[in-house]
């Protein structure tokens, strides 16, 4: 650590920091466009120019004669950074005026308005009027630049973050700068649009409204969006994300910086893969075969095929509890629970402790762990080859579920070992409690056959499956955006996810269903449950603090695992 002074505020900074990072530690913003923590330094936008000096051994301060880019200038013991001198302010004003010269100022129809660095910096550091008297350069918009991205060419400030991203992170190098001087544009070669699996990130990287997501384009003004910290459930990387919703509808997912998990980015599979949560085919009502005669069995006209009730849950839960108890009484070792790798730790814990609490001879198993192909590593080489070990900057994992590691820890605690439900053989038990949670295709042939037609089948899922069709009890569960809880990624990083929307119709978040089923008092509280799990299960003791922070905590078993972003 070295001591630096930023506008007279003394602060301890890492000697590897540049001026921008050091100033950030002092709570001072140095405006910048082209610099990004995970990309190479080009120092070309010249927005971050500051005065830098040093303290001489005799205590005098010597300021450099010229302004220097904060992004490129390293710090050392005694470095003095000034961001508030008139020299710096004049330079910031001029740079902003120059950046806005050919900018169309179409904020009123621009998707970025509200989270645009041109707007914010102009408000904070710029001036109100432009002195340009001449016509602006107008450029064609480029909708063809990628399947998911559109380029509004004249809004671009030529920071080249997007170009560097495709060269340094995805390695696919589709984007480039064409022409020269003030006629420069971002473009792709004809017939080679920017369609790599990480392409959506250039929209987040773009500090202005030049690169927009076609999926989100003109859907919502960003200031109406409410944000919740969450975790992507698309693969076992477990990217930290932010879910942006309004009025119970999710509009977009964006990566949330987490050096412990994935770094700054996320893949398009995860980014655009959330649409299923608003799918009409979702299970929206709990179902009960042969309801008790005293139940208020008014069938809902909106969903005639569902055996649903005006207030179905108390009846369904009571009946389910009754049937579970009697099934376990009849054949304790023939009662099998299938936990899915899409469950949170809390949910798995609630269900496991409930069933094992009735009879320890019941069997807990792990459901199918979906794996597609092999891990997809970035940056790609010139021929599309994977990077060498140690050079990996982003991984889309083959394991397409968020919490296998966590569920296995729960199973080891309650069952002693991890039994795969698929390996149990045909019709191997008399009663089944199967929890799903995947967007599609999770119930495969093996698990279907293993379950067969038992005397009791309880299914908790979000989409209909062959199992839910023949289930005696169906719990309409919640998607990832509707649940609070904890996921443990491939590298043992436990991250908390937060519900951002309510489940549709009568569906309920899994945690709430299981609390009620187990008859536990109170509301579902992920924090309290984490503390309980952490104290009871040694392998998961790291989460005993309850609050996992925004970056999560790593399980002791994985302590040697270096953070994904650091290893690259």
């Amino acid at each position: 650590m070295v001591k630096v002074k930023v506008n007279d505020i003394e602060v301890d900074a890492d000697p590897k920091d540049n001026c921008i990072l050091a100033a950030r530690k002092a709570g001072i913003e140095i405006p910048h466009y082209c610099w990004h923590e995970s990309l190479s330094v080009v120092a070309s936008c010249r927005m971050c120019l500051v005065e830098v000096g040093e303290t001489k051994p005799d205590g005098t301060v010597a300021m450099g004669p010229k302004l220097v880019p904060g992004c490129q200038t390293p710090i050392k013991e005694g470095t003095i950074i000034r961001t508030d001198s008139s020299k710096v302010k004049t330079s910031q004003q001029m740079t902003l005026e120059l950046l806005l010269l050919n900018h169309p100022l179409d904020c009123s129809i621009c998707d970025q308005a509200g989270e645009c660095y041109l707007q914010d910096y102009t408000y904070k550091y710029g001036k109100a009027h432009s002195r340009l008297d001449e016509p602006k350069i107008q450029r064609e918009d480029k909708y063809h630049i990628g399947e998911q991205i559109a380029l509004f060419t004249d809004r671009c400030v030529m920071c080249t973050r997007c170009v560097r991203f495709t060269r340094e992170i995805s390695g696919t190098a589709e984007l480039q700068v064409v022409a020269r001087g003030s006629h420069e544009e971002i473009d792709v070669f004809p017939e080679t649009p920017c369609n790599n699996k990480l392409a959506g990130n250039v929209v987040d990287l773009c500090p202005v409204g030049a690169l927009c997501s076609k999926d989100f384009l003109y859907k919502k003004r960003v200031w109406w969006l409410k944000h919740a910290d969450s975790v992507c459930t698309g693969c076992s990387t477990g990217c930290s994300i932010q879910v942006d919703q309004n009025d119970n509808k999710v509009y977009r997912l964006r990566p949330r910086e987490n050096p412990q998990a994935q770094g700054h980015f996320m893949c398009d599979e995860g980014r655009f893969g959330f649409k299923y949560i608003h799918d009409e085919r979702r299970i929206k009502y709990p179902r009960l075969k042969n309801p008790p005669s005293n139940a208020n069995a008014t069938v809902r006209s909106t969903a005639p095929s569902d055996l649903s009730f005006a207030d179905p849950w108390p009846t369904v839960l009571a009946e389910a509890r009754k049937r579970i108890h009697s099934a376990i009484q009849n054949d304790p070792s023939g009662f099998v629970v299938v936990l899915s790798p899409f469950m949170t730790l809390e949910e798995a814990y609630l269900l496991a402790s409930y069933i094992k609490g009735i009879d320890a001879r019941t069997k807990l198993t792990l459901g199918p762990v979906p794996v597609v192909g092999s891990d997809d590593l970035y940056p790609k080489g010139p021929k599309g080859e994977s990077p060498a070990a140690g050079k990996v900057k982003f991984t889309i994992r083959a394991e397409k579920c968020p919490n296998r590691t966590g569920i296995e820890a729960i199973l080891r605690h309650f069952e002693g070992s991890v039994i795969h439900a698929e390996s149990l053989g045909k019709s191997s038990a008399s009663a089944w409690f199967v929890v799903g949670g995947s967007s599609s295709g999770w119930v495969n042939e093996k698990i279907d056959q293993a379950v067969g037609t038992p005397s009791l089948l309880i299914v908790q899922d979000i989409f209909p499956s062959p199992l839910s069709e023949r289930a005696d009890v169906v719990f309409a569960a919640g998607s990832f955006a509707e649940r609070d809880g904890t996921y443990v990624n491939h590298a043992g990083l436990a991250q908390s996810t937060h519900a951002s929307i309510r489940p549709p119709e009568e569906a309920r978040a899994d945690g709430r269903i299981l609390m009620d089923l187990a008859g536990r008092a109170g509301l579902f509280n992920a924090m309290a449950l984490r503390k309980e799990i952490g104290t009871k299960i040694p392998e998961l003791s790291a989460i005993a603090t309850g609050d996992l922070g925004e970056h999560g905590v790593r399980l002791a078993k994985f302590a040697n695992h270096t953070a994904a972003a650091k290893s690259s």
Partner: protein
Amino acid sequence: MSPTEFKPVLLGRVGKPDSQSLATYRADGGYEALAKSLKMANTEVIDLVKNSGLRGRGGAGFPTGLKWTFLPKDVQGPIYLCINGDESEPGTFNNRVLIEEDPHQVLEGIVISSFATRATTAYFYLRYEYGRCYRALQKAVDEMYANNLLGKNILGSGYDLDIYLHRGACAYICGEETGLIESLEGKRAWPRIKPPFPAIEGAFRRPTVVNNVETMACIPHIINHGAEWFQSMGIPKDPNNPRDAGSYGPKLYCISGHVNKPGLVELPMGISARDLIDQHAGGVWKGRKAKAVIPGGLSMGFMTNAELDTPLDFNGPGRVGCLGLGTAAVVVIDDQTSMVDVLYNACRFFAHESCGQCTPCREGTAWSTKILERIREGKGKLSDIDLLMEIANSIGTIPGTTICGLADGAAWPIKTAINKFRGEFEEYIKSGRRSESLALAGAH
């Protein structure tokens, strides 16, 4: 040595029959310097060049020997020497004559410099437009390979060197040393941020020296005649200024513009602009007077008639507000020419050649061109003059707002034109007249 008794050194063989061939070059004592230096230690060659006070002829005037010493001492793997032949400063044509007329002189300098810097490969970056140069060079290089002056074990010394000719693609920015390196590597010629400087990490991330063609041409003569001989020409160090490295040796002055006899003359450093025009270029044409003179390529800015007695050495132009000596390309502008038109052409050139990397240069050069365009249409406002000055003062490396010096080169013509000819601009704007003269064709 007074200019009158000066015998051309670098241009000594220009005009002789078949001056491009190896045979005539050898007959005139060529490659003796190479043989001599190959027998010396490479550090001795560096010391000799250092002692001669030779400063780079490309524009910045950085001491050549000192530049060579910046290379890391114990480096594993190759070192590269890049020859900057991307001569694109408007008004400059000295490299062209040197290469076209006497390629072996330049190439001998390159081999000696490569030996001194321990480079095993030299890249000759030549601007695309110089087709004759390219052919002359290629022929000369082929002759050298055939005569053991290049390739393995040069002249039995055990020293190996390969030279590659690389033709650019017509961009001014490729004359900036790191832009040149990027272009050489096959990338967009965006100058690099420094540090690291090329001597530490240059072409292909290896230690690299970038030198100008004329600098190379001086090297064999320094080896042959010694440092003292070289220092007998030019303007000595200012004893009152410890940072002055002096302006020694012969220099090629390119004279163009409104003179009777434009061309290339070689003189000891330090002749005044007035003497150069009157004695060596036949005076200003049509009996007119010079209104302004560009001392060393467009980016250096303008001198007024009253400032013409300034010596054209490395320090002279700076004393009258110009950026420096630059490439010593003297362009004369007569008193019938509007400075508004001249400045417009200058701005148009730099706006066209700005690489577009840094915001101030990319937008500032284009904006100043637009403003001057409007003034030339008779729609100027008096406030435009201050606006132009503000733009000029906020771009470039000397305020610290860009990566390379192109923006300084763009700013200096604006600064000097407005500072020295402000009245003319005001009068032009007030009169509301439209400029009839056409913009120079082929400003790019």
